[in-house]
């Protein structure tokens, strides 16, 4: 079945440094749809950004990601970390062709901790 790998469980950064959270995926279907969800402490998880277009950069709230189907990757990046970026980040995958494959498969999550 589908799988999503977020190899870092915890990323600790100093404020102002660049952020890169890794996400790779496996699917037998060609129509992958990738998502990043963010879960701040004491809030509900919410969508940060999503993409199904190969090699197109998607941006939202200072974060960006590019879906690379050749390497099955959708890494989340930001040029400069802020204290308020500290949260749990989930990468997720679904198949674009519909049916039962449309359900989301989440990675294990990466906790980002930004320190001053």
């Amino acid at each position, binding site marked *: 079945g589908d799988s999503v790998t977020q190899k870092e469980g915890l990323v600790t950064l100093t404020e102002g440094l660049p952020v890169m959270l890794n996400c790779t995926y496996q699917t037998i279907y060609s129509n992958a*749809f990738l998502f990043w969800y963010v879960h701040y402490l004491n809030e509900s998880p*919410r*969508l940060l950004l999503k993409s199904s277009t190969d090699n197109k950069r998607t941006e939202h709230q200072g974060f960006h990601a590019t879906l690379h189907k050749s390497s099955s990757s959708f890494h989340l990046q930001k040029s400069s970390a802020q204290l308020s970026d500290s949260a749990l980040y989930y990468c997720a995958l*679904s198949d674009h062709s*519909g049916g039962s494959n449309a359900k989301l498969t*989440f990675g*294990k999550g990466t906790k980002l901790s930004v320190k001053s």
Partner: protein
Amino acid sequence: GGIITQTPKFLIGQEGQKLTLKCQQNFNHDTMYWYRQDSGKGLRLIYYSITENDLQKGDLSEGYDASREKKSSFSLTVTSAQKNEMAVFLCASSIAWGSQNTLYFGAGTRLSVL
């Protein structure tokens, strides 16, 4: 805008007890979900309901039942709570079933079993 309300926020149960978690949404969304969140394990799908009279098992359905009472509400029952179990259960909804649809989450129910 809309909101997803989960009750209770905290649930403490005894081993073997049947426990029910409730979820209400006012988005008028067709599809609703129950996920379990465990540290280091991500979000795992327990049950989902594509439309009002539908019920589908997810990857983690064993030990749980679900009920879609009406379009706006979706309940989850832990059929027999396991000793020392601790997890957060997240309810979510989306406008319809489909890969491109955004999930909107509730704040969660935190379960502890003594």
